[in-house]
């Protein structure tokens, strides 16, 4: 047995089993097959590599979009004025949508509507229907949990404006696909807008992401934008302006509050306004930020600049006597008038009583270029550069084209145009010691250096004249504020329509307070008051007083006068002015 076994396993020499040629043939055949295999694998590895890698990647790697949302717009304290939140929309192809009666009822209940209305929406368009737009993500996921066939959801962002109509003009709004269309939303698009990124990932069979391969494009989230606006002052300004425009039956109105130290615009309100959250039926007219995009002839609010120029040039002193020729003056074929006749006035009184003849006489005692240079240095004729889209520069013609009558009328604010922010900016030279501060709608830290325009003494002298204008005997005693010394200048300008001065007025007031150390500048403009009165002192003055008074108290500015400082003139003794 053992012997037989041993015999059987005894190795048989190869040479005994195969003849040499047979062995070679077999080896050759195997070698050829092996070479074929090798060739194929080389082909797959090198030549066809790209295609195969692509196919593999297509099965396991995906490019995912990383959403980036638009930055918020906040006020100076960080309270949101514009904010994007993700919302969902539910949509369906009507022909693929199938829902039972009870499913329809529960869907309608979730969406706060009726099954009939839902069916009507589905019937409107055979191709595509939105069942709900911009709904809360939780509502959408509950609706999706009903597992209705053919119901789909999609992600969207919606921009909300908590400030509504109060901040509408400054903030503006966005249109489709988060593109800014108006206001700061438009001008700061590059800063606010985010760029969605994408990354390549490996997913497993169940669709879970298992590995990050590479970021194709890093997402860039939109950055937050802090405005210089103080929400409290903004609301205050808006409320008072709206009340005044309604009470005076005016066409429109604007109000600006500027921080005298930094040039920041703390509030900017316009009436009429609109609600940016639902602007289906908004007139284009209501969307205009009048304080920046509209110009008007400023009228007497220009007089302080004329006087300051004359003081700088050494032509007059605050107590120089000017003969106002009983309130009228003829220059060539034209005659200019004072609304309030006063006889001889000091330069101080020219401002206090707003004498056109006085201002014109002072202006005519200087070369036109001097006046032009001073107006130009105060920022007239150059846009306020607040970073707001569509702001205008106003019109200030070069001095060589001025005729004497124009030089006279320009001294009291006719023949040139300004916008309200420009006017408020110009008054920074009286609020500071002669420095013109750049105004901005963006939050600034610390005080901002201005450009010196007039001498500190001149600024103080004019500030004193502005204070006189708000005292009894001035044009705006209604602008006084209990507890604070205020200074300001009224403007009552007739409007120029198609080259003709018509009986329509712009009543304005620009003032600063507290006079001992000015903190704020408030500029008010009421367009076409038509409830009888139209004087800057009686229309815009009270608005100034209420807004400035409340604003100073809100900001905690120390009072610089006793609370019983308000002295109103006896009835019938008020000083009227025109322009």
């Amino acid at each position, binding site marked *: 047995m053992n012997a037989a076994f041993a015999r059987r396993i005894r190795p048989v020499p190869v040479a005994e089993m195969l003849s040499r040629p047979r062995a070679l043939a077999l080896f050759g055949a195997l070698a050829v097959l092996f070479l074929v295999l090798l060739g194929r694998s080389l082909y797959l590895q090198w030549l066809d590599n790209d295609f195969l890698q692509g196919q593999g990647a297509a099965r396991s790697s995906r490019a995912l979009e990383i959403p980036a*949302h638009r930055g918020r717009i906040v006020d100076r304290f960080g*309270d949101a004025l514009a904010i994007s939140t993700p919302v969902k929309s539910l949509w369906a192809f009507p022909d693929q949508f199938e829902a039972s009666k009870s499913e329809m009822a529960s869907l309608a209940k979730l969406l706060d509507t009726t099954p009939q209305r839902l069916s009507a929406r589905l019937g409107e368009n055979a191709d595509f229907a939105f069942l709900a737009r911009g709904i809360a993500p939780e509502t959408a996921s509950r609706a999706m949990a009903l597992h209705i066939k053919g119901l789909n959801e999609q992600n969207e962002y919606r921009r*909300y404006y*908590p400030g509504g109509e109060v901040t509408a003009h400054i903030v503006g709004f966005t249109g489709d696909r988060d593109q800014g269309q108006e206001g700061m939303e438009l001008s700061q698009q590059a800063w606010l807008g985010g760029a969605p990124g994408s990354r390549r990932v490996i997913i497993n069979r169940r669709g879970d992401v298992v590995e*990050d391969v590479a970021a194709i494009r890093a997402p860039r989230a939109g950055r937050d934008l802090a405005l210089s606006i103080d*929400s409290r002052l903004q*609301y205050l300004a808006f409320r008072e302006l709206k009340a005044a425009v309604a009470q005076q039956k005016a066409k429109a109105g604007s109000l600006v509050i500027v921080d005298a130290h930094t040039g920041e615009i703390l509030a900017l309100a316009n009436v009429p306004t609109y609600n940016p959250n639902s602007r289906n039926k908004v007139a284009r007219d209501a969307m205009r930020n009048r304080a920046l995009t509209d110009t008007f002839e400023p009228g007497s609010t220009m007089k302080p600049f004329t006087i300051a120029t004359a003081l700088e040039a050494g032509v007059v002193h605050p107590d120089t006597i000017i003969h106002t020729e009983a309130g009228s003056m003829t220059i060539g074929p034209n005659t200019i008038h004072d609304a309030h006749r006063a006889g001889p006035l000091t330069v101080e009184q020219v401002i206090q009583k707003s004498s056109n003849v006085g201002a014109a006489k002072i202006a005519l005692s200087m070369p036109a270029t001097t006046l032009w240079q001073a107006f130009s240095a105060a920022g007239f004729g150059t846009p306020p550069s607040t970073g707001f889209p569509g702001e205008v520069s106003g019109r200030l013609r070069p001095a060589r084209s001025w005729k004497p009558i124009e030089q006279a009328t320009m001294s009291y604010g006719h023949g040139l145009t300004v916008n309200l922010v420009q006017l408020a900016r110009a008054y920074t030279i009286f609020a500071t010691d002669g420095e013109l501060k750049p105004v901005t709608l963006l939050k600034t830290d610390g005080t901002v250096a201005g450009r010196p325009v007039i001498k500190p003494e001149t600024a103080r002298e004019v500030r004193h004249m502005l204070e006189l204008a708000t005292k009894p005997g001035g044009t705006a005693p209604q602008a006084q504020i209990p*507890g604070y010394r205020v200074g300001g200048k009224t403007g009552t300008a007739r409007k120029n329509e198609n080259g003709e001065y018509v009986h329509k007025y712009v009543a304005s007031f620009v003032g600063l307070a507290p006079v001992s150390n000015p903190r704020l500048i408030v500029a008010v403009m009421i367009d076409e008051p038509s409830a009888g009165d139209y004087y800057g002192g009686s229309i815009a003055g009270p608005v100034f007083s209420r807004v400035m008074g409340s604003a100073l108290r809100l900001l905690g500015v120390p009072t610089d006068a006793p*609370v*019983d400082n308000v002295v109103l003139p006896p009835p019938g003794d008020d000083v009227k002015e025109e322009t």
Partner: protein
Amino acid sequence: MTRVNVVLLVVLVSCALSLVTSRHQARRLFVELTREQDQARQYEVEYGQLSLEQSTWGMPARVEKIARDALHMQLPASNRVEVVGVPNVADRQ
């Protein structure tokens, strides 16, 4: 020679195993990271909604309306306001 080979084999196997575990670890951590990132995004969204809510409820217009209508508050007239002089900070020092 054989001993060296055995040692190398052990090293090789342990390397291979550690590669497997660290690979697994990496994927597990990655999944966790993704989840946390999703969570972070979720919180961001929630923060946005809450600050929107805060702004909406805290709008001065609404606060004033409630103060006037519901709480019957009113601004004191100026003759009823007493202004107290604050000693200057510089004086106090």
